[in-house]
């Protein structure tokens, strides 16, 4: 428990004292300081009860100091018993400093902290003091007010937060493992239902299946089950097509890649896809003769669109919409089709590129009109 450090100087607050070049010993109860050789030979030395220490702090060396001396600041509470056999009668400060002229290892701080946490002095107290029953012990003064108090509360709060975070993540990892089992369970149940079709009414089967479906894709394609990346992407491409064909048809034949990414991952629930994998899967669609394909606008915006939808028909549809509404902004078209503004803008621009509409760029914003110049 005892650690001896040499060449230690004591500070009263910020002021140097004449106690310098001494030895320091840290015990479970006290800090002792004595002139070299004084402690082992039992001569007079200074002692500080650790119970008075509220908080310790390592003083960061200032940028201008070149000495290797390191300081530890000890914030003290007021002594309860008024005996004044200390080195100084009064002090303006509520802290002292220990200055290690030759530096120290980090374990000094550790040792002090350890001793402070152990509170060895408290364990002994009940044995010594026999309290009369019915009289409660004086409430221990928990904290000093002021900056020290605030700092200490902050430290405690941080510690508590750290603990609760790690507990929370423990739960999450448990959930992940449990969820895998859940999916497996639901799969076995669904196969069992299929086998025992006779026992259960069709209604029940349908109900249960819809529950499963609302969970998402019941058997997500994962990388593990494929040997090569290309095969994996092909599998994914098929999965994305089946999952997104209906929504894309409803949205006017086009869906931005961000929406594709979100929707696919929402449907998978677990085993989430990375954006790269999604993109690669969409790229693989071209070779697979699937109803959807990846399309890149001139601006670089990528969408997943129905294969049946080509530029001409798309811009015809857009032009017709503009004609019906007399004029359209990107926002209005986006709202009307239920697609993002970026996508709506792309559609308008591609219609403009083939001369199916024309633009009005004013301070009121970009608005598209039927191309009366060419119709006339």
């Amino acid at each position, binding site marked *: 428990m005892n650690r001896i450090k040499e060449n230690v100087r004591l500070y009263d607050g910020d002021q140097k004292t004449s106690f310098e070049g001494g030895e320091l010993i840290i015990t479970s109860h006290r800090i002792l300081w004595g002139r070299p050789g004084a402690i082992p030979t039992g001569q007079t030395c200074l002692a500080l009860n650790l119970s008075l220490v509220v908080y310790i702090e390592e003083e960061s060396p200032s940028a201008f100091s070149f000495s290797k001396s390191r300081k530890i600041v000890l914030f003290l509470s007021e002594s309860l018993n008024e005996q004044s056999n200390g080195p100084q009668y009064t002090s303006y400060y509520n802290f002292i400093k220990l200055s290690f002229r030759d530096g120290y290892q980090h374990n000094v701080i550790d040792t002090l902290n350890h001793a402070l946490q152990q509170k060895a002095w408290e364990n002994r107290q009940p044995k010594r003091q026999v309290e009369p029953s019915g009289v409660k012990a004086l409430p221990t003064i928990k904290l000093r007010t002021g900056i020290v108090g605030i700092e200490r509360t902050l430290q405690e709060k941080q510690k508590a937060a750290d603990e609760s975070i790690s507990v929370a993540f423990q739960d999450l990892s448990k959930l992940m493992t449990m969820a895998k089992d859940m999916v497996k369970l639901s799969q076995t149940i669904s196969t069992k239902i299929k086998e025992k079709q006779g026992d259960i009414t069709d209604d029940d089967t349908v109900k249960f299946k819809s529950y499963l479906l609302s969970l998402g894709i019941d058997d997500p394609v994962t990388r593990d089950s494929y040997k090569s990346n290309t095969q994996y992407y092909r599998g994914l491409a098929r999965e994305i097509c089946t999952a997104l064909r209906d929504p894309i048809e409803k949205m006017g034949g086009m869906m931005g890649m961000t929406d594709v990414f979100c929707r696919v991952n929402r449907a998978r629930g677990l085993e989430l896809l990375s954006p790269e994998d999604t993109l690669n899967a969409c790229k693989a669609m071209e070779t697979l003769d699937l109803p959807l394909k990846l399309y890149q606008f001139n601006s670089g915006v990528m969408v997943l669109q129905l294969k049946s939808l080509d530029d001409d028909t798309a811009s015809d549809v857009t032009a017709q919409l503009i004609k019906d509404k007399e004029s359209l902004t990107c926002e209005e078209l986006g709202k009307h089709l239920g697609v993002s503004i970026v996508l709506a803008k792309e559609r308008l621009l591609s219609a403009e590129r083939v001369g199916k509409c*024309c633009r*009005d760029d004013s301070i009121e914003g970009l608005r598209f*009109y039927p*191309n*009366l110049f060419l119709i006339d």
Partner: protein
Amino acid sequence: MTEVDISWPWQYSFPPFFTLQPHPETRSKQVAAWKTLILDYCRQTKTYSLDVREANQWPLFSNSAINRKLDSNVIISILSELAKNGNAAALDKAKNRWEIYWHTLEEWASMIYGYICESGLQNSVITFFELSNGTDVEGQEFFGIQTEVLIKVLRVLENDRKCELILADDMQGVKFF
């Protein structure tokens, strides 16, 4: 500017008309419409010259009813298109000041020379003022023609040896042959 009732084309109240269209085919139609409109407007208002910095406030380039204005740069590019056909000419390098010829200089020249021949004024000297604002020329197409433009027209005739300019300080006139 004198207020003249202009019969605006349908494009004038079509907001995209005031934005230069990126689609090439659309743009050529649009620019053609602007060229016709500018020449018609200048003919009807007897405008021989304009300053783009000022003209973009004119009703020609700004339709307050739909709150649209043609950008000065676009005006300049359209005027440059007009210049290719001899219907306009920039007066400075910054292309801010322009003369507009709703008849090209050659057209004006033949028109004036035709009038001279008709009135038998060959071999006589006429001042610029008489030619442009005289009572005799009232009702002629070139009545009120700006002197700077008139000189350019007469230069064309001079090149064809049909007249000779007399640019003395006290009397500026022209002698036709």
